[in-house]
């Protein structure tokens, strides 16, 4: 019976009634939005678990489907990403190199402060003598940058060598460990003079020779050797290295010793050139 009475309602009237209901709801929810929010939450609470369920089930299925569908796309993407990875790792390498360089520059900067008295120009090692290790090498600064022959070159903790010849934009440096190099040195503590001579044989052990030390000189292992005041090319007081293995020569007049250079010649990339030449006696 109930169904029959319901059927007799005119749809037009129902439409109007429901439309009014809708507008009333709109008005109510506009006016009392906050008070009505619990109703929305209830509906959401009922619906969202279902949505979640469908999502989990459907996502599983859909993912399988997607896997197959996107296989080719993934292959393409994979190759693309590999290329990208190559580029990025290359860039990363460059950045790492920059970082090492920065570290070295910082070291140089520290050094710069240590020998602050002398004006200096920084330069980069661009070429090394291919024959005998690192005994002579070229830097990327030349006469254009004010480099002249006989300027002293330092790096890290001490003396590297001396400018031997200068080009327009490069200079050749003979380092103290070169077999033909000899430098007047002195012991910082005792002021006893000596000659630091490059020696390829000793260099095998990582040291160079120190000769012509007076027999009476009161020296011990580990003493610092710096450039001497009597040298005519080297400025005074630049650290050369630390001595060890002191022996008295067979003539019983002088001593010989080994010297460990203060500079790591194996890994020399940046150097500082002191742009002040020791004044020569005329």
């Amino acid at each position: 019976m109930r169904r029959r009475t319901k059927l007799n309602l005119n749809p037009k009237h129902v439409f109007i009634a429901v439309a009014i209901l809708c507008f009333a709801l709109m008005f109510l929810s506009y006016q009392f939005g906050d008070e009505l929010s619990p109703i929305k939450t209830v509906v959401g609470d009922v619906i969202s678990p279902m949505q979640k369920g469908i999502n989990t089930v459907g996502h599983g299925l859909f993912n399988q489907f997607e896997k197959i569908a996107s296989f080719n796309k993934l292959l393409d993407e994979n190759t693309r990403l590999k290329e990208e990875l190559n580029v990025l790792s290359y860039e990363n390498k460059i950045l790492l190199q920059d970082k090492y360089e920065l570290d070295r520059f910082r070291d140089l900067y520290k050094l710069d402060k240590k020998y602050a008295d002398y004006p200096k120009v920084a330069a980069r090692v661009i070429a090394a003598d291919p024959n005998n290790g690192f005994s002579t090498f070229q830097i990327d600064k030349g006469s254009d940058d004010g480099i002249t022959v006989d300027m002293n070159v330092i790096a890290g903790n001490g003396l590297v060598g001396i400018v031997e010849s200068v080009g327009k934009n490069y200079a050749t440096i003979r380092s103290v460990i070169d077999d033909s190099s000899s430098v007047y040195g002195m012991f910082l503590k005792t002021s006893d003079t000596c000659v630091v001579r490059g020696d390829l044989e000793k260099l095998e052990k990582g040291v160079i020779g120190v000769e012509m030390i007076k027999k009476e000189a009161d020296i011990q292992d580990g003493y610092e050797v710096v450039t001497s005041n009597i040298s005519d090319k080297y400025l005074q007081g630049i650290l050369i290295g630390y001595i060890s293995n002191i022996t008295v020569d067979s003539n019983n007049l002088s001593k010989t010793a080994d010297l460990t250079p203060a500079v790591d010649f194996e890994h020399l990339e940046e150097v500082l050139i002191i742009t002040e030449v020791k004044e020569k006696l005329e």
Partner: protein
Amino acid sequence: MKRFIIITIEILLCFLLQTTIFQWIALANVVPNLLLILTVSNGFLRGRKSGLTVGFFCGLLVDLCFGNLIGLYAFMYMAIGYANGFANIVFDKDDQIIPMILVGISDFFYFFLYYVFNFLLRGKLNIFFYFTRIGLPEIVYTLLASIFLLKLFYIINKHMEKAEQEEV
């Protein structure tokens, strides 16, 4: 009672599908409007009153879950259901093509109302852009979905009517 339960399930399923699964297979960021198909189908197969009732509850569900103004979508769906109810008087119920055309027209009106309430009232006048961006893809996609869904609703309705006749 049986019809009530079945239609409730239909509404819920359409809503859930529309809000979940179809979101992943959305084309051009647009989801087929399953609830609209359901409303049109009910209006066409069962008349104005059924159409507006189903439309009202479909819209209400959308309102309660996503709308910020309860009653807006309810009204839109209800009006569409009611309008489609007139087709029930004019056309033969077993026709397969007419309801699809109705779905297309209804979706256009749905888009129009949607545009008016959601964009025009906020001063966005470029209806052509919104039509190409939202309206047209939705109509196409909904029509595609309606090919299967209308058939399904038709079969369900037929079974229910048969059962009701046996009951009486």
